[in-house]
């Protein structure tokens, strides 16, 4: 059994809006999933720390950080119809971003193990200059940008049911980051079509695999194997970070995919295969709003990456999506062809 490295829980009870689905109990449920594995000495908890401004500006505009901090310390409120902040949110969000950095630092020190960052608010919708979709700071992007600054080539696999528009936008034109997302489409945030393939300096390094409502785990895995895996192999990542949302579970109220906790185990095994060596894989909690499904899915996914055997539900199969997968492949191919043609003409598309 490999070692699991997780962050110490920072008190996030102050970031709460009564009735809002993005709530402190989510982290409790995720940590219950960890506890279910009975890891004993194979569980390492690293001390909580806040991300510094220097670390945050690798992924966010300084002016945005200033305004977000001031907004929180002014008492907070609704940022948009989905996203709230409180007086405590700034400190809590900085600790969520810092949790990812602390886990990665421990992985770098040990050179083995797998990281799991159980912190909130989630991050993958947060843009460099804007909060949205429950997200204030983009935790996985802050971690990836830090690794890129150390000369690493980072693969981000985002299996949250919603497209990670913030992460995609932040690394859109960065040749050192490969962003792969499977997500229900159409669905919030509306981005994530297969024709979005990356910017001028990173052509092909955004891989979107949109899935229709009702899609099952076999379709998701096929998309990753057929569309993303060849790109990942060519990219040859030195680190793998996962935006591990668990809201694609069939019990989750926020979307309509049909995955089970067993599917997250399968997905987790797949991403383990993308990591170049031990100690180079970390999973970041994103969405997941049905607490029982979240707990079971975390338990199954982490058991799989640690080579354990906990799996509550069988992987799902037989849902729709085969046609959309071919369409996505064709759209991506066409978009890449257009960009390469433009590239040869040295004219930015």
């Amino acid at each position: 059994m490999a070692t699991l490295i997780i962050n110490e829980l920072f008190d996030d009870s102050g970031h709460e809006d009564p009735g809002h689905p993005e709530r402190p109990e989510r982290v409790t449920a995720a940590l219950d999933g960890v506890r279910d594995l009975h890891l004993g000495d194979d569980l390492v908890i690293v001390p909580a720390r806040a991300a510094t401004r220097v670390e945050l500006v690798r992924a966010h505009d300084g002016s945005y950080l200033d305004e977000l901090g001031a907004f929180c310390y002014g008492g907070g409120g609704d940022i948009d119809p989905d996203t709230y902040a409180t007086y405590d949110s700034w400190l809590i969000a900085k600790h969520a971003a810092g949790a990812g950095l602390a886990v990665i630092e421990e992985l770098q020190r040990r050179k083995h193990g797998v990281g799991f960052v159980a912190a909130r608010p989630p991050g993958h919708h947060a843009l460099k200059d804007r909060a949205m979709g429950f997200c204030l700071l983009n935790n996985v992007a802050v971690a990836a940008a830090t690794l890129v600054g150390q000369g690493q080539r980072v693969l981000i696999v985002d299996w949250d049911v919603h497209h990670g528009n913030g992460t995609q936008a932040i690394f859109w034109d960065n040749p050192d980051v490969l962003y792969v997302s499977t997500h229900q489409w159409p669905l919030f945030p509306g981005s994530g079509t297969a024709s979005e393939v990356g910017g001028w300096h990173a052509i092909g390094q955004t891989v979107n695999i949109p899935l229709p409502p009702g899609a099952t785990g076999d379709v998701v895995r096929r998309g990753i194997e057929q569309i993303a895996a060849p790109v990942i192999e060519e990219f040859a990542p030195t680190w793998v970070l996962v935006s591990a949302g668990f809201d694609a579970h069939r019990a989750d109220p926020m979307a309509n995919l049909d995955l089970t906790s067993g599917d997250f185990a399968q997905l987790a095994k797949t991403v383990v295969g993308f990591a170049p060596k031990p100690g180079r894989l970390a999973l970041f909690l994103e969405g997941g709003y049905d607490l029982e499904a979240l707990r079971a899915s975390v338990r199954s996914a982490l058991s799989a990456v640690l080579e354990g055997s906990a799996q509550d539900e069988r992987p799902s199969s037989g849902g729709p999506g085969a046609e959309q997968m071919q369409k996505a492949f064709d759209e991506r191919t066409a978009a890449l062809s257009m960009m390469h043609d433009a590239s040869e003409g040295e004219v930015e598309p």
Partner: protein
Amino acid sequence: MTTLHTIAVGYDGSPDAEVAVRWAMVTAAATGSRVAVVHAAGLLEHLSTRFSRDETPPAVLELADECGLDIARLSWYVNDGDACSVLLRAGEAPVEADLIVVGSRGQGQHPGLLLGSTSLELVQHSNVPVVVVPLPAPSA
């Protein structure tokens, strides 16, 4: 001078949005153009049935009646995303708006310059003209 075919206007049910929709409809009625009322469906809307994807809200139909806009020239769109992204996409098919209209502040938006300022972002990024309609000043 380009001809105005379609005016897209953001609508979230707020008083600001209502003022913007009214402005768009009056302008459309005067210029013979169409109005596409566009609603951005956020994350939380998956949990609610506040706005139907298929049927124009009664409040919007009432506004059209008040503004003298033939409802044959009125369309209702619900698209997933944040308000800014959804309205920016209104410049593309199927809406293909020549003009985008928004209220100065939508529902639940922080009044700051950066956080949640749909109108500011639209003005910065839109490829078609944007009109930001303020709420009328309160009478003394």
